[in-house]
């Protein structure tokens, strides 16, 4: 059963549409759970408030991590994969019944793990490093969720096969579907790592296995934990290209380059487990250097290629629309009133300048010494998975509401402000966490006054300022998330029906006109921006190494 979209002209399989909707709804529920916990955590770490007791603090850190990093992201990605493999390709869903099986498995996993955590049976953190032991049902919940997610990925490939066989698209996959396929391939590698480690751990928690080696556990667990973040990167970059198309009618200025960059992700990004073992015993320096650098930084190269290709796709299209004056008219005349567009631009900036720079620098073998397990690490991934992935997902939702849910956005004015508010909140939160970490403040730590310990320690007095900043950032980000959730819930339940292309609040741009032949640069503005990025990166790079050189000697 298909309907033909009167706005985009795509054929939409109604079964697929339903699956996309339900997965998206559970993504939003997970996000709500995650940010509620996050607010309580921020109020606890801010020492003058110190809201929760130690027990509930660690319980909610576990709860927040699982709901934010796993449930929210993966539910949304499953919705995205179904969208990318059916709607964009004008094809049907290969096996809707199995789609529901996958969905129910994931929901069962979510419910089971969350209940066990809240009952206090698994205060083990998201990472659950052995020999810390949680309740068997906690591990079983995650296994069920992972099996469901893996099934969803298999269905994605099934959809691709049908589309290919029935020739529903041209000779090559559209770039967005290609990027999502990259995400799906990485997801298979990642979820397999998850199965390899969670199944023995589950058996160990039941008492059927004597011992799970802690170093082996950490190595393989991060094959899931970090590599799964690369699913997000691939999915997020795909959405960036999609919004370039929807908002200004653009695409990558050279699709071969963009696609090659996606291939680099598949080949090298799964080495990222090493980022978590840089100051660990058990592995050699040669292993660390090779793996942490994704084999000579070839996956970083991929991200840097996208860092040019994504903004230049906007710039090139805008210039062809006639915004050709100077270096930056393409940017000043961009559709800033479109919340999906502003969300994506802000996500690109945040991901690059905060998440990307710190990711590469903290992930170098030696500089990791000065940040390992400090609060700078969650600061870094707030800069990738929150300001990058989450903001991107929030942005694209503003298109999904009219196109998939067929509703108008309630409170559109609020929607236009929401990405900015969220960006400011997370940027403050993330940057202050990074600074706190550089001053030695540990992550996952209930009391930085060390009450009850034999000694005490006073951090550099500068931390007081950054704790306040972090709390303010957290509160702003929480409010922005709440606004987004309310907009989504109200629009989906009470929004007016969308009546055709003229009734859209977010415009969908026609294709940008063909370029006139011209000499010189295709995207000079983007080139300038990437050079600014380069300078910031080098400044942070040398600052960190200078910092490291001032510490004790160790080898």
């Amino acid at each position, binding site marked *: 059963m298909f309907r033909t979209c009167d706005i985009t002209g795509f054929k939409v399989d109604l079964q697929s549409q339903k699956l996309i909707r339900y997965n998206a709804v559970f993504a939003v529920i997970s996000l709500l759970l995650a940010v509620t916990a996050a607010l309580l955590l921020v109020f606890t770490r801010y020492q003058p408030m110190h809201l929760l007791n*130690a027990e509930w603090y660690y319980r909610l850190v576990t709860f927040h991590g699982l709901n934010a990093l796993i449930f929210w992201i993966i539910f949304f990605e499953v919705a995205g994969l179904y969208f990318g493999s059916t709607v*964009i390709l004008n094809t049907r869903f290969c096996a809707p019944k199995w789609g529901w099986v996958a969905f129910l498995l994931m929901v069962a996993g979510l419910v089971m793990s969350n209940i066990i955590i809240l009952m206090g049976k698994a*205060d083990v*953190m998201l990472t659950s490093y052995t020999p*810390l032991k949680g309740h068997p049902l906690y591990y079983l919940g995650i296994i069920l969720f992972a099996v469901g997610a893996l099934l969803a990925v298999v269905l994605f490939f099934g959809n691709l096969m049908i589309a290919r066989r029935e020739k529903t698209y*041209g000779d*090559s996959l*559209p770039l*967005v579907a290609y990027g999502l396929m990259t995400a799906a391939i990485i997801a298979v590698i990642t979820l397999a790592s998850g199965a390899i480690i969670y199944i023995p751990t589950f058996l160990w928690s039941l008492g059927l296995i004597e011992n799970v*080696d*802690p*170093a082996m556990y*950490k190595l393989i667990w991060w094959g899931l934990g970090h590599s799964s973040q690369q699913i997000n990167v691939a999915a997020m970059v795909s959405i960036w*290209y*999609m919004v370039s*198309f929807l908002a200004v009618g*653009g*695409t*990558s200025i*050279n699709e071969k380059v963009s696609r090659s960059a996606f291939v680099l992700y598949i080949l090298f990004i799964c080495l990222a487990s090493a980022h978590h073992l840089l100051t660990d015993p058990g592995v050699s*320096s040669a292993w*660390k*250097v090779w793996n942490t*650098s994704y084999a*000579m*930084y070839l996956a*970083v*190269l991929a991200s*840097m290629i996208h860092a*040019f290709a994504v903004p230049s796709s906007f710039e090139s299209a805008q210039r062809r629309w006639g915004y050709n004056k100077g270096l930056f008219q393409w940017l000043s005349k961009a559709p800033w009133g479109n919340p999906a567009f502003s969300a994506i631009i802000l996500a690109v900036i945040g991901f690059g300048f905060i998440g990307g720079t710190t990711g*590469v620098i903290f992930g*170098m*073998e*030696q500089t990791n*010494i*000065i940040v*390992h*397990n400090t609060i700078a690490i969650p600061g870094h991934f707030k800069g990738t998975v929150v300001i990058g992935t989450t903001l991107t997902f929030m942005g694209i939702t503003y298109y999904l509401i009219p196109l998939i849910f067929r509703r108008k956005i309630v409170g559109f004015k609020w929607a236009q402000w929401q990405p900015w508010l969220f960006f400011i909140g997370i940027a403050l939160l993330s940057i202050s966490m990074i600074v706190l970490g*550089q001053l*030695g403040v*540990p992550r996952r*730590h*209930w009391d*930085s006054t*060390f009450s*009850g*310990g*034999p*000694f005490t*320690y006073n951090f550099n007095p500068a931390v007081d300022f950054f704790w306040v900043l972090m709390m303010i950032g957290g509160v702003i980000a929480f409010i922005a998330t709440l606004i987004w959730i309310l907009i989504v819930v109200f629009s989906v339940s009470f929004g007016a029906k969308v009546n055709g292309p003229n009734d859209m609040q977010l415009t969908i741009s026609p294709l940008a006109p063909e370029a006139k032949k011209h000499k010189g640069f*295709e995207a*000079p503005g*983007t*080139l300038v921006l990437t050079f600014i990025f380069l300078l910031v990166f080098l400044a942070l790079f040398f600052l960190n190494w200078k910092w*490291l*050189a001032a*510490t004790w*000697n*160790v*080898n």
Partner: protein
Amino acid sequence: MSLLSPVEGWYYKKVSKDEKMWMVIALILCLMMFVWMIMWHVYGKQNPSSLTYKTSTAEFSKLSEAYIKNNMVGVDKGIPVVRPKPNSDVFVLAEMWRWSPVLILQKDQSYKLHISSRDVLHGFSIQPVNMNFQVYPQYDYVLTFKPTETGEYKVICNEFCGIGHHTMIGKIVVIDKEEDLKLYGYENMKKAPDPVVKKTNEPLTEQEMVLLGEQAYTLKGCAACHKIDGTKELAPAWNGLFGKSEEVRENGKIISVKVDEDYIKESIKQPQQKITVGFEKSPMPVFPVTDEDIDHIIAYIKSLSK
């Protein structure tokens, strides 16, 4: 056109000049960073070690206990203090929830620290110099440190290790001259509690039993949770404990018991049997102690109630 199939000839389209330029710069940056890490091993002075020994928690606990017994020069807040010789092997034990021993190091001298855990993962984080390493059970990580500044440093735990995680804090003191010891109150460290001469065939006096008990209290790590100054965040304090009536939970029921020899013996051997009300969240693990050790510890606890 990212939602549509690419236009014909996309595969052969020439890469524009600016994109090509950026890719070359990016590639150079990537290769530079890769080489940088390798060169730091040659010219840099901070490199995480590759030296690891496989061990077991029991074996490493024994090593650390023997090391401390032979080398301790005093006690600070229930934690033994050791002043190792430069270039020597030093054994640092991480456990729920303390670092043992406290170290006195000489500036600009190297020390081979063997670090391992008795239970779960811990994070070895020296502040304020901010150097951070991971500590595992079953693995002995050997890191050669050379402190470059004098001062008092704290070792905090930055890997979640249970409900008492935030109380896990140790100490390293770096001195230049002997006088510096005064800054930390370490100038007259008493050699105790290791004054007991091994006697054969002769029963120990009460006084000697107490000293051995104090030694066990320090070495076995009881001090991590059981304080002797009346504070009780994670476990009952030991001063004034002997002879007292305590509310305990046995099989879910709350009963009252008198703290005597038998109760202490049972609590050490089967810590989960009777759990003192108020401390259900920080259950005590089973420690590798002998019956003799237990007798000494009982003598020590008795002495704290006099």
